[in-house]
């Protein structure tokens, strides 16, 4: 257990290192580093100062070392637009994004799991077919367009829910959250639903596929042959086996939700990282872009790490030999 933890940590470090290399290559080799790192509005003196600061006159490997050094200190440079450290900007907006992504994940699981279980257990029922067709629709509906339609219907036509911003927030653990206030909740609802739509379909389909894979197994038949109640067969024998793929979904999809919140945040003017990164790409605010990308890399590596640990806890087979 300990050795595999250590091994995985080392792997994670390698992934991070590889990604820094890719981002570095992207920014410094493919792109024009002078353009990328220097505010286009800067004057000549400023240019030379920044070129010297970032060592753009140095050989590539030294530049990479400098880049890494900056990373280690959390120094991605100052935003051209805000004139403040890029990392600070990102961190400031992170809670809003996390809140949105987490809400969407909860919705996806609460809706997707039971429906998928149902459709998997009773595939021939009409209701199951309806659910499955619905999930194809959920897959196909372009998220951003659905967001607009939500606004059109619930905000413009019906006037039930607000369509932009976080609303009132309250503080918990030193961070401001929307879900703690009624007004915040009302603001959160539409974006969270919008972001959850695609993932709900995904969770639903994966759960159904999982159920259909587990059900024909001999051990399920044997559980029935023992005279177990159907409720126990499903809630213990089927569900316990489903936990493994589901945990993977939760882990991976949480990351993907954070990435996809870019779209939802832009539509609902949700002040999170996603909106910031789109604004930054549009305004060529490169320090913020790099900081965002590196934060995402960190986040994903951390998530994968966590999933691995959950696997080990859930699947006795992995626990023994250390790998799936």
């Amino acid at each position, binding site marked *: 257990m300990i050795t595999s933890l250590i091994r995985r940590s080392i792997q994670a470090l390698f992934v991070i290192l590889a*990604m820094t290399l890719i981002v570095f290559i992207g920014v410094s080799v*493919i792109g024009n580093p002078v353009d990328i790192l220097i505010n286009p509005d800067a004057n000549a003196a400023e240019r030379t100062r920044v070129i010297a600061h970032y060592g753009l006159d140095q050989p590539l490997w030294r530049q990479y070392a400098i880049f890494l050094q900056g990373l280690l200190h959390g120094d991605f440079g100052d935003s051209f637009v805000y004139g403040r450290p890029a990392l600070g900007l990102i961190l400031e907006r992170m809670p809003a994004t996390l809140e949105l992504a987490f809400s969407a994940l909860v919705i996806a699981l609460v809706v997707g799991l039971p429906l998928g279980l149902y459709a998997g257990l009773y595939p021939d029922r009409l209701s199951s077919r309806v659910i499955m067709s619905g999930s194809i629709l959920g897959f196909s509906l372009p998220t951003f367009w659905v967001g607009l339609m939500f606004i059109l219907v619930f905000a413009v036509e019906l006037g039930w829910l607000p369509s932009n911003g976080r609303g009132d927030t309250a503080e918990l653990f030193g961070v401001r959250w929307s879900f703690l206030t009624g007004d915040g909740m009302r603001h959160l609802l539409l974006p969270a639903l919008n972001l959850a739509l695609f993932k709900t379909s995904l969770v639903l389909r994966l759960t159904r596929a999982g159920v259909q894979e587990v059900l024909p197994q001999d051990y399920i038949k044997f559980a029935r042959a023992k005279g177990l109640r159907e409720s126990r067969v499903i809630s213990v024998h089927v569900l316990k086996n489903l936990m493994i793929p589901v945990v993977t979904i939760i882990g991976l999809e949480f990351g*993907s939700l954070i990435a996809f919140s870019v779209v939802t945040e832009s539509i609902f003017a949700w002040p999170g990282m996603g909106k910031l990164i789109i604004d930054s*790409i549009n305004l060529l605010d490169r320090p913020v872009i790099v900081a965002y990308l590196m934060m995402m890399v960190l986040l994903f590596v951390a998530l994968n790490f966590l999933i691995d640990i959950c696997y080990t806890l859930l699947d006795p087979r992995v626990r023994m030999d250390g790998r799936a």
Partner: protein
Amino acid sequence: MSNADTTPIAPEPLARQRIIQYLSAPGAAIGMTLLVVIVLLAVFAPLISPQNPYDLMQLDIMDGRLPPGSESYSGMPYYLGTDNQGRDILSGILYGLRTSLIVGVFSAIAAALIGTTLGLLAAYVGGRTESLLMRLVDLQLSFPTILMALMMLAVLGKGVQNVVIALIIAEWATYARTVRGTALVEREKEYIEAARCLRLPRWRIVFRHLLPNCLAPVIVIATMQVARAIGLEATLSFLGLGASVTEPSLGMLISNGYQYLLSGYYWISFFPGIALLVTIVAINLAGDRLRDILNPRNI
């Protein structure tokens, strides 16, 4: 089997059987029909659309934001209304479909070519090359497509071409992984063994024997990928990172309408969205059935 008088059922030609089987599901038939219509509409857009929405000379700002069913000064009907620049939404959709399909199909094919080649290479060469390639694939697949695409666009800058490049780079890994998986299974089978014993050249084994057997999963993924790519292109355009304002794709049209949504000009966003939705649903319906029939594992 040696039983002489079991009457064998005369087999239909396999391809025909497959097609019949394919279309016997209502979803697939609907999907296929829609798809054919959509492709025809897109191909013949210049012939059938009332105006050329990319030709700024044909646009009249005075016709801006007219509701569906209005007429222009010159008496031309705007069946689906106009956008803020006076562009006929119907024409915009027809032309936008072209962009969407081209981007979707082209990026899916390019990604399939690259991914398949690398996947086969990995499976056949093995060793260091394989583990390096597969590490790269794992790394890439652990990041969501949209993030990869944003990363690419952040580096390359905005524009349709860059969206295509971003899509290819974001999607090749799926093919590589699947093809390698299938090829590994195939490689162990007897006929490859036989081909080896005959000392056929390597490339021949790979292209004549391994590749055809990896085709089913590649086709299925590619179909799904076209739908995803179209959705993603629209999303990126919506975010303002794709098509240019003067030659709007579906995503861009929707984005244009976004600003006017709150004022009640719903049609600018609504109809292009429906077109996008129908296209993606059609491809997914067709692809879903394809997956059932070709039934490739490990997807």
